[in-house]
């Protein structure tokens, strides 16, 4: 089950840097999609591997069960 309070706290921090976080459960997996707003600070987003760890802790899930999408993934058509 997603700890909405912790996720919302992370989302608020991300929003300060111009990013939006959306976390959804998909069966046994969790999807975390981070999108960049027009004023997003490119260097301010933690590397994806670190985000995986942070989300794994916040969600109490194994990092391998979290599908993370970063803004660069979308721009590359992934």
């Amino acid at each position: 089950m997603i700890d909405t309070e912790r996720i919302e706290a992370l989302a608020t921090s991300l929003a300060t840097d111009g990013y939006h976080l959306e976390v959804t459960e998909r069966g046994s997996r969790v999807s975390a999609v981070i999108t960049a707003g027009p004023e997003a600070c490119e260097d301010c987003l933690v590397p994806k591997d670190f985000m995986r760890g942070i989300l794994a802790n916040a969600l109490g899930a194994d990092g391998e069960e979290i599908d993370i999408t970063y803004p660069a993934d979308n721009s590359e058509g992934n």
Partner: protein
Amino acid sequence: MPNAILDPTGTTAKATARAAPRAPRPASLRGKRVGLLINTKRNARPFLTELGRLLRESYDVTLTERTKVNFAVPEPEDVIKDLAAEADVIVTGVGDCGSCSAAAAADGVVFEAAGLPVAVIVTDSFRATADAMAELRGAPGFGYATTAHPVAVLTEDQVKQRAAEVLDDVVALLTS
């Protein structure tokens, strides 16, 4: 010395299983060597420089400065070791973005594991990110000195005022 190396990516939740050690605190900062680890965020240098000046004025500390290689990622182990050898306590910051707050927290956990008390300064907007990284590194409940976000846009005088405002919290974090 405790082994400070943890899973650098935190790919699994099991990475948090072992609690990170916390360094013993001196009773006072008087005469201590203070290491300033400055990230390259705007206004971080004048913020920590002023904080160092205030610490020297109040506690007769000696100061050593290092500049982070990359504010967005934890500092390389050799830089941590170099600074640890030249300081009794560490002050680092300013974490006023997601990546730099997380990196500052990660650096703080490593310094503590190396036996050095550390005061990590983050802005209030990124406390959650810093907390998440500290917990990931096995240090839930890690303490910070916080200042209001943002710092980057402040004037020189405003930066000095902010530094003065966190002085007591920094001292409290570094002493018993």
